[in-house]
């Protein structure tokens, strides 16, 4: 027997868009991306060039990595509000330790991501704290710690290692951004992992029904722990790519990316309630957001305006997806 629905759902309008998104999200999102590119090209003739597309990929890679962690968290029915704080912290470590050697700086930055993810994972998986609270608190702790750290860093000169700077802003073969070369293998691993690995199955399952997982012998805490650890490391990678691009760390480096990471996931069709969606949609979501950002910049929209528009877009798309879900 199906449980009674708590609210009478209004009749569905926009049946075409609804069905298109429900049945072929990738195709629909791809279509939106192409439309956006065409619109940008119409506003600013000559936008669709290999050079501009390369720049789009370059911008999209850090967001793509950040949104990857967010996707994993949301697939398990959680949310990670510490992704941008983790990325900023990683960026800070790279700049602060850059003088001591690239490898060391990168290793410490990744270790920080691991530690943050581990703490989140223990809180959420073992202590059963709500993901929202845990990661919001973690973001608070990281934010405060960064403010403290920024005071000590002013003594030395922060240097972003050249290799990281190259990775975050350089290209090979003329147009292929180096950070895309970091993002692409990550993306492939995530896509394959979610679809065809035991862990991927477990992540979807935990998001869909944790009790069923327990009764089937899956230790939910292990899945959640690993999910948030992966999220922490992915956020750190995003921070490294980001600081490589900006070539300098500041306290709000990744702050605007928090909503964007959620937006990319929501646009990509992953439900915050967990158990359905995937990283493929998120990739398209990140690309759509990046092209949209270019378009808005060309149209001279202020930061405040962009922020409001992103809020509206997240709301609108989440609405369409909510309607696309079956009425039961």
């Amino acid at each position, binding site marked *: 027997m199906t449980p009674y629905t708590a609210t*009478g759902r209004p009749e569905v309008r926009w049946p075409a868009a609804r069905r298109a998104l429900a049945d072929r999200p990738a195709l629909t999102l791809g279509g939106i991306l192409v439309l956006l590119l065409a619109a940008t090209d119409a506003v600013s003739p000559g936008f669709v060039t290999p050079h501009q597309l390369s720049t789009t990929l370059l911008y999209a890679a850090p967001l793509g990595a950040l949104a990857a962690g967010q996707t994993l968290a949301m697939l398990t029915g959680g949310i990670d509000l510490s992704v941008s704080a983790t990325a900023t912290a990683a960026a800070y470590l790279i700049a602060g330790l850059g003088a001591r050697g690239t490898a060391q700086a990168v290793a410490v930055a990744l270790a920080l991501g691991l530690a943050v993810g581990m703490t989140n994972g223990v809180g959420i998986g073992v202590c059963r704290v709500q993901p929202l609270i845990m990661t919001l608190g973690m973001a608070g702790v990281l934010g405060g710690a960064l403010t403290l750290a920024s005071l000590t860093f002013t003594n030395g000169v922060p240097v972003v290692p050249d290799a990281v700077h190259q990775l975050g802003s350089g290209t090979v073969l003329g147009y292929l951004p180096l950070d895309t070369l970091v993002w692409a293998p990550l993306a492939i691993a995530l896509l394959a992992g979610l679809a*065809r690995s035991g*862990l991927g*199955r*477990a992540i979807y399952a935990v998001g*869909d029904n944790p*009790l069923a997982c327990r009764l*089937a012998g*899956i230790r939910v805490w292990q899945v959640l722990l690993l999910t948030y650890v992966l999220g922490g490391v992915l956020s750190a990678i995003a921070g490294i790519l980001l600081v490589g691009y900006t070539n300098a760390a500041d306290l709000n480096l990744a702050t605007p990316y928090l909503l964007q990471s959620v937006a990319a996931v929501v646009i990509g069709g992953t439900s915050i309630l967990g158990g359905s969606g995937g990283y493929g949609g998120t990739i398209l979501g990140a690309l759509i957001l990046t092209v949209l950002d270019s378009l808005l910049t060309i149209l001279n929209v202020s930061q405040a305006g962009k922020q409001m528009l992103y809020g509206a877009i997240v709301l609108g798309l989440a609405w369409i997806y909510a309607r696309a879900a079956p009425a039961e």
Partner: protein
Amino acid sequence: MGRHPMPAVNLLEVRGVSKRYGAVVALRSASLTVAAGEVHALLGANGAGKSTLVKILTGVIRPDAGTIEMSGRPVRFASPASAPRAGLAAVFQDPSLVPDLTVRQNLRLTGADPAGVRRWLAAMDLGVDEDDLAGDLPLPLLRILDLARALAREPRLLILDEITAALPADLVERVFHVIRRWRAQGRSVLFISHRLVEVRTICDRATVLRDGADVGTLVLAERAEQQIVALMLGPMAASPEALRPAGPGAGTRPDAAVRDRAGGASAAPLLLEARGLAVSGALRGVSLSLRAGEIVGVAALEGQGQDALFDCLAGNRRADAGEIRVAGRTLAPRTPYDAIRAGVVLVPADRVHALLPQRSVRENIALPLYNRAARWGPIDLRDEGARAGAAIARLAIDTRAQRQVRRMSGGNQQKVVVARWLAAGFRVMLCFDPTRGIDVGTKRQIHRLLRDLAAAGAAVLLFTSELPEIPLVCDRVLALYEGRVVRELPARAADEATLLRVVHGLAREEPPG
């Protein structure tokens, strides 16, 4: 509609009501007539559309087409709040009391008259502390409170959706007593239940739904069950042949032959032993043993410790005392995982607890395959497909809605839960009321499957709330009463009358061993 003589006054008249969810038709065209002063049963297999019709009658959902009339006047319900105004009150399958409010606040929430509620509770010989949080009360009492609250509204038509499902037998009697009083006052009841015996006991007429449409209304007389079952199954599925599972070697043995095997199991190895299992407030030293090839039934009224017993054996709860041995080895499961590793698997009471509603049939069946970190690497898709395919075939699961199990019927969902363990493998299966709320055809399939599993060397512990199932499926039966095994019987001797006596704690005997 049936062509039986209609009573003069029709209280409720439903004509051609339909409802679809996207592509899924939940109700094709249902009609139903309830006369004043009548207890009318609404019957049908799972997925026949009973729940949908009830939801429409109570304003939970709105129909796509059709008309509803009360005493000849058309009515239209926008929400559950509007149904009572038309003289309709319902007791839903799920308790509708808010857990964090006290009973008193719950009554105020619905504008129920507390004095009326107290009166009806008294009529059932029950009382409740109105300052208790609803969430602290046991489920059967919550159902009764729901009923009293509905009765206190003095509706003309009372809708009872599976009210007896969670009630122990003595409470069922008291509910029936109240229903009879209600009818004597010239008021009506629409009674929805899977238990045909109850339907025959309390109802005057019955309307049967099949595939979203009404297929007949009949006056209930002695021996009406056969007729009802035939209507529910329809012409295609009526022959027993069609109910047999499609798997190799399955369903070839008639039930009688199965039961004859029962005596021969004593030489088989012991698979599961429990000694003195205790859980405070639930279990007081339960011992049992299961041999390979054996199905042992557990018979009990609601709340006699059977939940705790199954949870302890499945590792979902830790016993305060006692020992569990699986195939001779001690097992002290901290989580279900430990029990599953030892080969003890659980089919839980509520399939909602066991399923991944948004995932496919295949992912649901394959779930236990990935329950340890060592299996979190790449999936062997061919192996997974073969295991899932074999389990689907053996249980004859209808895979038309396989992309998301939430779109499947209840019976099919239950089969998916069982199929999971066929694919993963096990030694001992703990089945907690696996046939509750599912249709007759699927019930028979599950009975046969359990016998087949036992024949193949597994052991099955089966709790069922339907006592007639026990002689049909089990070899032995343990009667549980107040957290103790009060009696052990061979299944052949466990006719319903005997079982009813022992589960009520009558005819007590020291448990053997």
